[in-house]
């Protein structure tokens, strides 16, 4: 990371690369497909969201597109998950972090144990997403009428329908938390749009990772 010391933002703050261009593209393909899936899925989920059918060109098109977009998201997410897997192992510090949720929510990070590349919340979200995506793929294939549903007995299809809807709910709420965290912790969005964070950001939010990056 020798070249990073040359990177500076417009205010002259030194920058660290947090995400490479490939990681960013991978993330945004996953994010865009997620939004398409959430909107088309919600259209079918509850009548109050049925107006969203129009966004996708009507009910038939929504029904046609949703599973194919789902396959793209699954593949994209799994590549992303493999890239980040080794950063997401939970340790003792993470348990302590979870116990101090009140300090987390009130911006008193100085009281928290030293965080590596990801904090416990991010790691937990990571594994919730991994589990959700697997469940959504499996249950989604079972209820995919056009190609697969006729291979399965009706009880399995009914169970898969419940699993698909329940898991989608968990994933949507998780992503709302994910998006809010990015808006709340200023400087995070730049990590995924430009690829970089300032030294100050890294030291404040991910001190252990910061020290690894500066070679301490």
């Amino acid at each position, binding site marked *: 990371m020798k070249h990073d010391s040359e990177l500076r933002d417009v205010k002259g703050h030194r920058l660290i690369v947090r995400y490479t261009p490939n990681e960013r593209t991978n993330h945004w393909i996953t994010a865009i497909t997620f939004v398409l899936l959430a909107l088309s899925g919600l259209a079918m989920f509850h009548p109050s969201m049925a107006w969203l059918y129009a966004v996708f060109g009507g009910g038939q098109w929504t029904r046609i597109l949703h599973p194919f977009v789902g396959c793209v998201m699954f593949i994209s997410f799994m590549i992303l998950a493999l890239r980040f897997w080794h950063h997401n192992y939970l340790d003792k510090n993470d348990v302590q972090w979870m116990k101090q949720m009140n300090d987390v929510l009130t911006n008193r990070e100085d009281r928290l144990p030293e965080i590596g590349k990801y904090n416990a919340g991010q790691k937990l979200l990571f594994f919730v997403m991994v589990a959700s995506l697997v469940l959504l793929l499996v249950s989604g294939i079972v209820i995919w009428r056009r190609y697969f549903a006729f291979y399965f007995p009706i009880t399995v299809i009914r169970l898969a329908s419940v699993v698909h809807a329940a898991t989608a709910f968990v994933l*949507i709420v998780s992503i709302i938390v994910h998006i809010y965290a990015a808006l709340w912790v200023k400087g995070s969005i730049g990590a995924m749009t430009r690829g970089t964070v300032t*030294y100050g950001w890294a030291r404040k939010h991910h001190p252990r990772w910061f020290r690894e990056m500066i070679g301490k």
Partner: protein
Amino acid sequence: MALQSLDIKRLSATTVPQTQIREPVTGTVAKLIDVSKCIGCKACQTACMEWNDLRDDIGHTTGIYDNPRDLTEHSWTVMRFTEYENPKGDLEWLIRKDGCMHCEDPGCLKACPSPGAIIQYTNGIVDFHEENCIGCGYCITGCPFNIPRLSKEDHRVYKCTLCSDRVAVGQEPACVKTCPTGAIMFGTKVDMQQQAADRVEDLKERGFANAGLYDPAGVGGTHVMYVLHHADQPELYHGLAKDPHISPLVSIWKGVTKPLAMIGIALAAFAGFFHYTRVGPNEVSEEDELEAHREAEEVQRRREGGQERTDETR
């Protein structure tokens, strides 16, 4: 306006009450199929094809009388033939006209995610409006009788309409009109129940002690009912469900959990908004940046110092 119906009890994927100021004064309608009078001539299948202008593909003989072998998007009713050897050792040929039962509590309508694709009229008929169908097949998942069939060509589901178009203008369904033995009858549900009661009494006198009416309470009753000689064993009639009801899995999937989940999603978004407006963002100060710089420079100095020392010792 002319084609607008004021007789809608329920619409799929719709949360507000439907136009139902007109209540049928004679109550709901019902088709009564007296299995004990059926001779298996399939005139009803033909009448259904004719009236609805449907032609199924010519299939294959498989050694049994069922033809076509199953309901399809082109065959909305099919005679199911069962050879049953009763305890006395006699053969009974049980022939049941299969098709939509028009449940009072329709699982298809409950499961359907497309507004107005499935309609229950105030007269009890459950009808599909295929122009609104999105082809997801959720109605198949919801149906306790395995009735709706999804077309591979236009990706819409089809089933018996109970000739809603004929009934709307005061005529009986096509199958009823054509049945040569009078095994299929049509009228108000109360009349049909009375008709069935008389017939059940007849059958009991003639040795069918367990004769009865099939009008399953699990789905709120049906608007297609059977008179069965063995009402205690409906499974004999090609697996007719003994206690059909909407699967608990479908109820979980399509019950109160859905509005609750919508509220949950909204609450998650609101929680974020109010956290931001109460606690505020987590920002990096200029001081944080300076400290980070100092730490990085120190590390660099120490490393360069170490480098020099190793050079000297060399």
